[in-house]
């Protein structure tokens, strides 16, 4: 079956839900094409608000709509929503506790060679530090579908980040568990735990296959929810595996890795390593070139796991 990008899975599901729930409103900032909202906008024009290239305004308008009883989904590139609109997210959404879903698409390095203005490698860090926002990064199209259904009934501020291209599926049409705040265990293993989030989950999953050929049984945890943080899953993994490798399409600073490190240092400081992007304006390249260059592809993850085990 043909793989579809998470953003497409999101918009298809949202359209289905919105047909049955007129309170759902999608907002765009000249982003309907990049989000894949064209069909939604044509089908439900009354449940679509175009804001033009004005991401701050877009989030503010969503907060106002939420206060009037709507369920707004703000859809735009993650880079702009998580930095340009950050004050609106902090004050109008999180602080005022409005029922706004901030949907960041083409996140991480999806936009590759377009450069740092278009990368969102700080979003987890900033959102984590704002009280009151749930942070979700679905792993594949099936999980995105389940997540979207859950979001329609979830009351409160949420930040979601998805990528641009299609990724390898780790779930299937009839198996894509998604419970906010509860990590999924993808592979059972006790040699090392690989904790990944979003679209690095398929990479981590593939890394575990490479490792198993060499007799190393890795436990892969899909951390689709960064906040609230599933402490139990991490502490259990630390206890049973004794070493933890984290993987995220994000700066090494302030993301999933540091959240795990924080928890371990206060409870059970097992050896760990954080895989993420270096603290620099990245070199030019498409997303797979960047994944390889900065060590986020499945082979690099497998190598890092072995190195961590040698320590």
């Amino acid at each position, binding site marked *: 079956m043909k793989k579809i990008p998470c953003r497409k899975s999101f918009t298809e599901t949202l359209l289905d839900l919105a047909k049955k729930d007129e309170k759902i409103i999608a907002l765009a900032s*000249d982003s309907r*094409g990049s989000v894949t909202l064209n069909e939604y906008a044509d089908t439900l024009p009354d449940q679509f608000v175009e804001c*033009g*290239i*004005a991401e701050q305004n877009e989030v503010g308008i969503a907060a106002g709509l939420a206060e009037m009883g709507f369920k707004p989904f703000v859809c735009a590139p993650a880079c702009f929503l998580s930095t340009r609109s950050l004050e609106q997210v902090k004050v109008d959404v999180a602080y005022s506790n409005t029922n706004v879903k901030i949907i960041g698409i083409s996140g991480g390095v999806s936009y590759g060679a377009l*450069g740092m*203005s*278009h990368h969102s490698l700080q979003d987890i860090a900033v959102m984590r530090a704002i009280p009151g926002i749930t942070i979700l990064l679905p792993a594949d199209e099936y999980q995105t579908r389940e997540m979207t259904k859950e979001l329609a009934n979830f009351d409160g501020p949420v930040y979601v980040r998805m990528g641009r291209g299609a990724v390898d599926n780790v779930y299937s049409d009839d198996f894509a568990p998604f419970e906010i705040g509860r990590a999924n265990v993808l592979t059972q293993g006790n040699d090392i735990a690989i904790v990944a989030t979003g679209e690095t989950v398929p990479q981590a999953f593939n890394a575990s296959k490479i490792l198993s050929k060499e007799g190393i049984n890795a436990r892969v945890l899909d951390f689709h929810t960064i906040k609230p943080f599933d402490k139990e899953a991490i502490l259990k993994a630390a206890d049973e595996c004794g070493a933890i490798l984290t993987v995220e399409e994000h700066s090494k600073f302030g993301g999933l890795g540091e959240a795990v490190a924080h928890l371990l240092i206060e409870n059970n400081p097992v050896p760990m390593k954080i895989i993420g992007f270096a603290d620099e304006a990245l*070199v030019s390249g498409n997303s797979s070139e960047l994944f390889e*260059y900065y060590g986020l592809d499945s082979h690099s993850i497998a190598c890092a796991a072995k190195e961590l085990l040698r320590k």
Partner: protein
Amino acid sequence: MNTIKELEIKAVEIRKIMLQMIHDAGAGHTGGSLSSVDILVSLFYNKMKHDANNPNWDERDRFLLSKGHSVEGYYSVLADSGYFPKEDLSTFSKFKSELIGHPNKNVPGVEMNTGSLGHGLPIGVGMALGAKKLGNPCTIYVLMGDGELAEGSIWEAAMAASNYKLDNLIAIIDRNGLQISGCTEDVMSLENLKEKWAAFGWDTVEVDGNNMQSLIEGLDIAKKRKGKPQMIIAKTIKGKGVSFMENVPTWHHGVPSKEELEQALKELDNSLKELM
């Protein structure tokens, strides 16, 4: 470069270089680059004081590409002006190239990193204010898209520019009437644009942004006026110069196939013949 004809020829040549570059990279923002080429040429080959051999010359005029996605025309002009070798253009958007998909200061001639819309005018205000404080006679040019004008930061800068009477600031709007999702007037209407800028305390002049004569005249008027920041509304055609790209929204980031490139280059060669 002085004559209108020379500038017109240059603009066609730049279009050719630029389209080749986008085709080679398999990526780029074609429509808005084509609409703004004439503006870039009028500035870099005629109106602006600048020196490719001395890119950090203190009194150079500054140019900010606020609509940073139109980088292909900009890189082509910089390379052609001698800021860096033209051969480098073939590395555009490739792995480890300095020529990333939005303007970057690592590239000689580029003043600021742009790409997120709505940043150029505030920076331009800062530069113009700084130049005044220093008695630096340079002029600051900022090129913006029309869709870009929905960003609030532009209007904050608009207010600041007139507050500080920045007559050394000349902003230009590439008024091609289109943005990614379609017509600006359908997506987020801008009209009456001239009156809006006037109300914010700017002098305005409307020009045909794909007509060299009109552009040069407009820039001359803006340069002479004193006491207020200057806005040039340059009416353009998105995709200008290639028949099948003109006014077609999807060419915003469309990439020409081999056949489309050949067709486009043929049309541009014909334009050159007509000019010569």
